[in-house]
């Protein structure tokens, strides 16, 4: 997904203005003329400058406002992209309820099948990989991965 430089410039200009608006309320360091607002303020001004330069460049180039990369025209690849984002969201919202073992196995299965791995291979590999990662992080590194609906096995 390629946005025109002008659009990027506009977005970045908006961001820098938002930052400048936000830092107005930052307090000063007592007795000093400088405070926590100075550094982000300078950055925002520089960013605004770059954004304006980008807008000018974009207007000169006169490209289309939005160019879709090759992959965005292929349903299969857009699906792949969305699936990756979706499984991460799924993990964030489901892992505490379902537990690591169940969630991660489901994620791996979904991605394997989408990428064309045969079920006969996908299922054992998914289960094996999840157990391996579980052992490394839960047993060896003592990370408290969520158990969720599974009763604590050991």
């Amino acid at each position, binding site marked *: 997904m390629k946005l025109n430089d002008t659009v990027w410039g506009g977005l970045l200009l908006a961001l820098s203005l938002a930052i400048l608006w936000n830092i107005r309320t930052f307090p000063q360091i007592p007795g000093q003329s400088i405070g926590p607002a100075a550094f982000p303020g300078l950055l925002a001004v520089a960013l605004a400058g770059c954004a304006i330069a980008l807008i000018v460049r974009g207007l000169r180039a006169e490209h289309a406002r939005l160019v879709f990369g090759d992959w965005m025209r292929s349903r299969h*690849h857009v699906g792949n992209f969305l699936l*990756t984002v979706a499984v*991460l969201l799924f993990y964030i919202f489901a*892992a505490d309820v379902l537990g690591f073992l169940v969630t991660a196995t489901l*994620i791996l299965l979904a991605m394997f099948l989408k990428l064309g791995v045969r079920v006969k291979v996908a299922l054992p590999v998914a289960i094996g990989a*999840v157990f391996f990662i579980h052992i490394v992080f839960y047993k060896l590194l003592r*990370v408290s991965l969520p158990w969720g609906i599974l009763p604590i096995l050991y």
Partner: protein
Amino acid sequence: MDVYLQAIKLVFDPYVLTVILVSAIYGLFVGCIPGLTATMATALLVPITFFMPPVPAVAAIVTATAMAIFSGDIPGALLRIPGTPASAAYTDEAYAMTLKGQAEVALGAGLWFSAIGGLFGTLVMIFMAPSLAEIALNFSSFEYFWLVLLGLAGAVFIGSASILKASISLLLGLLIASIGLENPGGYPRFTFGINELLSGVNLIPMMVGMFAVSELLRFMVDMKPAVRIANAKLGNVFNGMWLLTIKYKWSLLRGSVLGTIIGIQPGSGADMASWMSYAMSKRFSKEPEKFGTGHVEGIIESGAANNSSLAGAWIPALVFGIPGDSITAIAIGVLYIKGLNPGPMIFVNNPQSVYAIFLVFILANLIMLPLGWATIKAANNVLRVPRNILMPIILVFCIVGAFAINNSMFGVGLILFFGVLAFILEENGFPTAPAILGVVLGTMLEENFITSMIKSDGSPAVFFTRPIAGGLAVATIVILFWPVGAWAVRRLRRRAAQSA
């Protein structure tokens, strides 16, 4: 002498040696798989090093990256796909050699001269870093301010396709660094009311997102068809290497020196080192017409350069806390987490750790020879590992790694956010390396800027009057205005040509 003994004891400990061995195999494997870069290898290692003492943690990163940069040559020679971007410069050359039936010479040269280049960079680091640190002990906030700025300017202006976009990427990184409480006023900035952001954006999930998840997304939308592996028969890869070393000793030296220098220069790492020294090798070669047809000279020079740049990048990282490339940017993050804050004081307070890091570099480049040889032997099998199985497993690994840092789901959210962000930015021609340098150096830049401003009572002249600060200022300003000046000169010349 006592310190050296302590360093030896720190490294030659069964636990550390095991870590080195395992991360060597890991690095060789990751480098060998196209689409997995050395930077990604580092980012994925960080969550694990989080649970280790400082020396093995650094050892793991050093070893894995050195191995990955070498083994990127393997798919380059056999499949014509560079395993890591650092091998891209001479991939065509190596593949042409394979077609001529000289795969073992190409791979052997990659391995042998990588190890020599790596050792060269390490020696430069061993001799240069401690004396630089002694000078750096006298630095005040003014010098540091310019030094950080110089590093950041280098990251933006050297080797970026679009300086404007690289600058924007850098500014975004610096802005991300200013999130949270850690600022001169101790005031919570840009936290959006999220408690997790009070301590700033956690570096580890951010790096896993920017370097691993974004790379995964790129794989998921990759439309290139799967490649078929050429079955190359490989004999003894070390055959004839000694003769090549003598014949091309100057190429080797040139590549190693250039690589180390590019490594030291902040913001440019192994990829740049190998492209530049390949070009240099062609220019200085007695037989430049042979380049591109399967000639080993360029492989020798840039193979040495990309490995020597790795050690070079650690010099400013250890001495000033300013990373020389994106790998050391990640490594600096690890050093801070481990309480081994980089900077000249590390040479005073913790010299044994520094010498231990030196030792690890030597060790890593030495064990590269046997392990690399084994990897080349096994290459045909390693390259057959199906990526549609590997990539989803890496994603789960990213999730767990991000979660492990604070045992919080917020980390998983961060890898998603920064993964998608980095993917979109790269699609639109914004490089991500300046952003990561910005994040790592942002706090340091602000701290030194504010301290200097307070010390100088608001008068900017002091930034220039101290001798070293003044010199650094001039250097920074030259780099900053170089492209503007070059552009103006070009324009004036064109005008002159038109009016003539």
